[in-house]
């Protein structure tokens, strides 16, 4: 800050160079290297100290790691009988991905511009974004080809009622004093208790059709697989690149959303 109150440069140096023609062109902007003005070393040191201190603070307290978990590929058993699908935003629009029980990931296709409702026997049902009065509000996607094979225009209720923001789904996630506790909303079964950073938690969770498994999405953008009875720790099923992902299980049904 000393330099802020330093007396400004007298015009002699620059004036002489400009007048004699020996210096740079008159209107050429002064580069840091060629600047002839006074430079304050304390200001440079203070700036460096500010940056170093903040970098250290961020590294020590700002950057946290989520709980480290094994992947489904590393520990393949026990495994569910069904795959899951989800959509995430990419360059080509909304892209649908699937992961099978062994952890093999596939891309169904892109450009669907909607969100997933279910994965029925007919295919993956996508609720198309658009006006509430849209006559055709859902499309059925073939998971193998990515083609639209059917349309659903008789959804029970308004499209807005089907569009739900992820808010934990079938689990309740609490992080108190660095301990994360995840329980099933129905039955209060404790699925997972782990030491975790305060910002870590579960964004969405969906119960498998047979009620044996729960697919969860955490804040580190990972799709986790955990037994619904809490008998084993979660495993990482896939990286989903977004935390606002709502997975759908293969074999799920298209059921109307409940009120509230």
């Amino acid at each position, binding site marked *: *800050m*000393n*330099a*802020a*109150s*330093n*007396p*400004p*440069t*007298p*015009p*002699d140096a*620059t*004036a*002489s*160079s*400009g*007048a*004699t023609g020996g*210096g740079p*062109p*008159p*209107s*050429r*902007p*002064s*580069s*840091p*290297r*060629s*600047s002839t*003005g*006074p*430079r*304050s*070393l304390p*200001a*440079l040191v*203070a*700036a*460096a100290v*500010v*940056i170093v*201190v*903040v970098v250290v603070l*961020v590294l020590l*307290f*700002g*950057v*946290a*790691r*989520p709980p480290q978990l094994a992947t489904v590929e590393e520990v393949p058993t026990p495994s569910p009988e069904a795959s899951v699908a989800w959509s995430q935003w990419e*360059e*080509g629009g909304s892209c649908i991905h699937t992961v099978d029980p062994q952890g093999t990931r596939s891309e169904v296709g892109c450009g669907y511009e909607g969100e997933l409702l279910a994965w029925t026997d007919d295919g993956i049902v996508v609720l198309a974004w658009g006006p509430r009065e849209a006559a055709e509000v859902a499309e059925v996607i073939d998971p193998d080809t990515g083609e639209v094979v059917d349309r659903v225009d008789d959804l029970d209720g308004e499209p807005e009622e089907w569009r739900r923001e992820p808010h934990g789904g079938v689990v309740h996630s609490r992080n108190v004093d660095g301990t994360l506790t995840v329980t099933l909303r129905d039955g209060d079964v404790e699925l997972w208790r782990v030491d975790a*950073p305060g*910002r*870590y938690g579960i964004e969405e969770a969906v119960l498998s059709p047979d009620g044996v498994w729960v697919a969860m999405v955490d*804040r*580190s953008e990972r799709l986790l697989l955990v037994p619904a009875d809490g008998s084993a720790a979660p495993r990482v099923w896939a990286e989903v*690149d977004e935390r606002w992902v709502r997975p759908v299980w293969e074999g799920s049904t298209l059921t109307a959303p409940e009120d509230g």
Partner: protein
Amino acid sequence: MSTLTDRLDAWVDAGLVSPEQAERIVAFETDGSRHTGWSPALGGGHRDTFEDTAAAGGSGSGSRNRTSIAEAIGYVGAALALGAISLLLGQLWADLLVGGRLALVGVLTVAVFGAGLGLRGSSQPAMQRLTSVLLTATVAGVGWFVGVVADDVLELRSDATGVTVGAAMLVVAAALYLWRGGALLQLATLGSVLLTAGTSLSLSSLTPEPVWYGVSFAAIGVAWFLLAAGGWLPPRALGEITGALAAFGGVQIAASDGPTILVLAVGIVAAGGLVWLAVQGDQLRHLVVGALALFVLAPQLVFELFGDAIGGPATLLLIGLLLVLLAVGLGRARREVVDDDSAPRHHTTGSQGGVS
């Protein structure tokens, strides 16, 4: 209004110029030169008001006005053309293969950089400004090109792509700024620093809380302000303003979550410090930025502390007091400007406020 020789005598007496320099100036002015009033010492930012040069300055002023209008029209036309090209590219982009995208962006970037290189030696102010625009556009082009490489070729995740783009832009912007200097390249460098810092934080597997983004931006802003004030980042005035704005922007981000009251309080103290610095040093730019930050941050703190119950009246009272403070500061700054007009202009050189 005094004669040139009178003023030069006064400057020599004050030790501002040497007798030899005064003689050279007199010789220059009496040789019938077409001096237009452009002052190299002031970075082109001011014109002389001496009677001796008034006649020459009069015709030069008209010429400069025409040049400025033509330049402005040229930039508007270029902006329209760029907009049209962008629309066309937007329609074609999805159909282009990766090679086509790289070639298109690469050719555009090299062309812009080449044009900047070709014009770099010109002594015309308009060409100098165009050079800065072209070199700054080169920074954006490099970022675009690296973005295509990271996204389409390397298929990096979005946060990794962001860091790659930011780092590449930072390297190019800093190099060009060190080479050429100027306001636009300084802005590009600061923008690249902020982009790199923000995207680097997002690389973390668990995204940090907003307060850490804010703290990082604020620290960069403070460091930028210090470097500019210390004479390391010309033009100094612009560096101080943008550094302060980045710092207060960081405060605003940090206050969006977590220790809001503490962060807002720190921001208000910093803003008050800037206003104090403005009044002490008669720096209008500090006053404007500091007052702006106070107007933005103070009401938030009042509502955080007192809620809706007394938040409204208290905020009105606070803003009223701030307006009084601003008026006092503006009064001082105005005196400074008036004094500047009637005294030898030795203050403004410290700011190196020429915009390229």
